[in-house]
């Protein structure tokens, strides 16, 4: 299989020279300045003629674009296309890299990309979480300001954008990239270089969003509504570029997943034998590939409005702020299901293992995932029920929004019936999955109020809707994200995580989470608007309760981070190949998984859920012989 003939390590300084993260950062900074001064040289004369030199948006935008191009060049993304242009044969040499250094380079091994994603997304998740702590610090008092008003809005916006932008790839990035090729019996993703590209674009995007603080921040929150967007200072460009890059990353990730799952399944892996996690990834990837381009286009229009004075969204010049709202939510509602659907799939994937029963109602579960994926295109106007959209359409969107609870209910009944008469083990990943039912139930039931137009008149834009989507996204996505970490990280790293520490983390996080967000339903019902820095004095007790709980929630995540890093870096307890006695194929492979995954391509004869149906099928039959990719 592999490969490196020589095992002589060159000195450290020598290894730093080449196409890697360091070179990427250096060229990124260089590219930034090239863009900045280049655009300045061209544009400045005309701007100074109009006396508007302070608002040279074009320089800033081109600087960031130059930075991204430099960064990707430094990582080596141009090497392969240039080599092909010069007539060299195709190869996947990047996959053979060994050692820790490959995590800081362009590596086309899907298992490396998965782990890169895990740490990269984790980093930005913690930055987003830190912003949440700052928000709750500000809201300890009804009127006293800890932060200046503009800073507070930037904190709110960075928190929202970071979570909605980076966490869209929270499951698909680390876990689908790592596991889908294993689950479908392939040696790699369909487009390994694009897979690496999605990760590094996302990292560039996250850094760009953070740099908004050098340009005055942005006042719009994660939705970036027009025309406030146009009116904002240059920090707004960072938001636009961030989200557009995230959109490009999502589109590529989605296409890669679809093509991989459709075309690269091993022999015998029919659609009804596909692990339900792969179905969840597929339904999410369809949304990503189709919804994210809308976001990129919308933000491009917004950027044109800001930079080159077009008028797509300026009412006085014939544009419309509704255009932005509609385009944004055409992306934005599939977006929230991009966040939620992988959670459904993870729960359904793990319940059979820990209840020792087959997945109940496989076809119904698949119908549920695809049904949500389809229906999520027809509900977006419920975000703008009171905005003055065409009034005739509101009953339709009320209906379509409520209809989506039917396929969501499929996930519930399939999960519940899988537990029924099972032999339930309360492992850490199982606890996180069970918490999903509780959290998503509350999230879903509160959604009934938001979907109902008369009730939405009061709950829209209040803390009620904020509590609702934190229950569905944090309670749905982030809890299953941790379930996936506890379940699959032993396989990914070969290091077993402590059940005891995991359970402490779970109960701490679960109680703190509910103590934080359940009172927010009441706060919203009592009339506190979102994103407002002041609130009624009578609501101070509830807000303080929420803030203190939120700090406890933040500490539970710090506890996780500390124990996680400690166990991976110092304890290093070796994991068994199949610590959960799962029948899924990834657990039949050795830990850590070999570079090319399978010596021989497996042939599938059943789905991985045959608990109680006799001995597990053998996964190493005479398939295609091993070969290079």
């Amino acid at each position: 299989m592999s490969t490196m003939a020589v095992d002589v390590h060159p000195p450290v300084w020598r290894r730093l020279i080449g196409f890697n993260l360091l070179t990427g950062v250096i060229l990124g900074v260089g590219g930034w300045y090239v863009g900045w001064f280049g655009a300045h040289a061209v544009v400045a004369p005309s701007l100074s003629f109009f006396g508007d030199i302070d608002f040279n948006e074009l320089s800033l935008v081109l600087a960031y674009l130059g930075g991204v191009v430099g960064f990707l060049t430094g990582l080596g993304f141009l090497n392969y296309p240039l080599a092909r242009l010069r007539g060299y044969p195709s190869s996947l040499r990047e996959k053979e890299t060994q050692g820790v250094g490959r995590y800081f380079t362009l590596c086309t091994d899907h298992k490396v990309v998965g782990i890169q994603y895990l740490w990269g997304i984790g980093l930005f998740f913690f930055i987003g979480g830190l912003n949440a702590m700052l928000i709750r610090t500000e809201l300890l008092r009804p009127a006293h300001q800890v932060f200046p008003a503009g800073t507070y809005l930037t904190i709110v916006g960075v928190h929202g954008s970071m979570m909605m932008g980076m966490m869209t790839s929270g499951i698909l990035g680390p876990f689908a990239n790592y596991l889908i090729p294993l689950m479908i019996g392939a040696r790699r993703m369909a487009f390994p270089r694009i897979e690496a590209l999605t990760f590094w674009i996302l990292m560039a995007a996250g850094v760009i969003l953070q740099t908004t603080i050098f340009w005055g921040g942005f006042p719009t929150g994660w939705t970036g509504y027009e025309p406030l967007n146009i009116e904002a200072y240059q920090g707004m460009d960072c938001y636009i570029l961030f989200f557009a890059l995230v959109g490009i990353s999502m589109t590529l990730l989605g296409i890669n997943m679809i093509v991989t799952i459709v075309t690269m399944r091993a022999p015998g892996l029919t659609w009804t034998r596909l692990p339900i996690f792969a179905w969840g990834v597929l339904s999410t990837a369809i949304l990503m590939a189709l919804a994210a381009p809308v976001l990129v286009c919308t933000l491009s229009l917004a950027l044109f409005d800001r930079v080159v004075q077009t008028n797509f969204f300026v009412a006085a010049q014939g544009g419309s702020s509704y255009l932005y709202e509609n385009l944004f939510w055409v992306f934005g509602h599939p977006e929230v299901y991009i966040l939620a659907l992988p959670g459904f799939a993870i729960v359904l994937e793990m319940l059979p293992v820990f209840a020792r029963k087959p997945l109940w109602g496989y076809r119904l579960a698949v119908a549920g995932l695809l049904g949500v994926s389809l229906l999520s295109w027809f509900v977006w106007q419920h975000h703008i029920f009171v905005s003055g959209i065409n009034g005739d359409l509101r009953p339709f969107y009320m209906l379509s929004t409520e209809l989506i609870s039917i396929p969501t209910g499929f996930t519930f009944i399939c999960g519940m019936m899988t537990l029924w008469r099972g032999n339930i083990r309360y492992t850490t990943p199982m606890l996180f999955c069970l918490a999903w039912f509780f959290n998503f139930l509350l999230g879903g039931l509160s959604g009934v109020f938001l979907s109902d137009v008369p009730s939405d008149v009061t709950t829209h834009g209040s803390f009620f809707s904020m509590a609702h989507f934190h229950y569905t996204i944090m309670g749905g996505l982030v809890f299953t994200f941790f379930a996936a970490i506890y379940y699959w990280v032993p396989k990914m790293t070969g290091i077993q995580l402590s059940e005891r520490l995991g359970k402490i983390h779970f109960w701490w996080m679960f109680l703190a989470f509910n103590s934080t967000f359940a009172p927010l339903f009441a706060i919203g019902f009592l009339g506190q608007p979102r994103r407002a820095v002041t609130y009624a004095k009578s609501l101070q007790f509830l807000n303080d309760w929420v803030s203190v709980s939120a700090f406890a929630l933040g500490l539970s995540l710090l506890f996780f981070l500390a124990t996680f890093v400690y166990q991976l870096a110092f304890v290093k307890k070796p994991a068994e190949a199949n610590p959960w006695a799962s029948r899924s194929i990834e657990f039949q492979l050795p830990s850590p998984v070999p570079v090319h995954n399978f010596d021989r391509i497996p042939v599938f004869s059943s789905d991985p859920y045959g608990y109680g149906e006799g001995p597990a099928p053998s996964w190493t039959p005479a398939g295609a012989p091993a070969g290079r990719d």
Partner: protein
Amino acid sequence: MATHPTTAAPGADRAPHGRRVIVAWLVLSIVATPLVAIFLGPILPPGNASVQGSGQVVDNTVLTATITPVFCLLLVFFVYVLTRFRAAPATALEDGPPLRNHNGIQVTWIVVTTVVVLSLAGFGTFELLQNGSGGGQGPSPVAVPAGADHMMQVQVIGQQWNWTYRYPGYGGIETQDLYLPENTYVVLNVTSLDVIHSFWAYALGVKADANPGVDNVAYLKTKGPRSFEIRCAELCGLWHGYMYQTGHIVPQSQFAAWIKQQQTLNASIARYMPKYSRSYYPDPQRRGG
């Protein structure tokens, strides 16, 4: 640990689990649902300061009562399943019965959820069409209460970061405060001079976005005199959090006196005022980019 022990003999557990769960659920729902409707219903938002507000309270009560049995079902189910089917340490890896499907359960579940969902949507539509439920309906409203042509009009103008009001029935005067007469049907024409705001009179159950260049119509029937808080519910920039006011519903006579006083105040500035219009395009537009 690649062991996959086979299951205990199928059908060994013949206890009537299903019947127990259903009976417990029915009992709990029959007790809990009326309690929720009777005790929680009246304190649900937004209160009874307007006809629209009262309508929303009814709506919220019905929704809460509807979701109560759903919540009870999952509560009973999970408490039963998670305690009754807990693995003993010795047999933790023993497989359960290989139940893969049950058409009856699937069909029942689909039918019941569909019926619940369609009834909710039907009920919501019915409630909405009564009087618009206080929500902004855009320039050409659909859910129009009877007699809308003769209602008192008040224009709400959002601007960074304040609300002002114009009364077209009283010469288009512009005021800093919102006064409404008691027991009166009012048409609110909500618009904005700059970015998107959202006019939210929480106690009255009114919320309507203020969009630049758009007349967003909401209907409101006031009840007795009281004060109410007005907030902006759409992020509108730096001082969004401070964009609040107190509005007043006052007796007819007091309203007449107030509007007369405002007309006097407005007389001196009337010639500088833009003509009353359903929307305004101030010049120059603020533009950072």
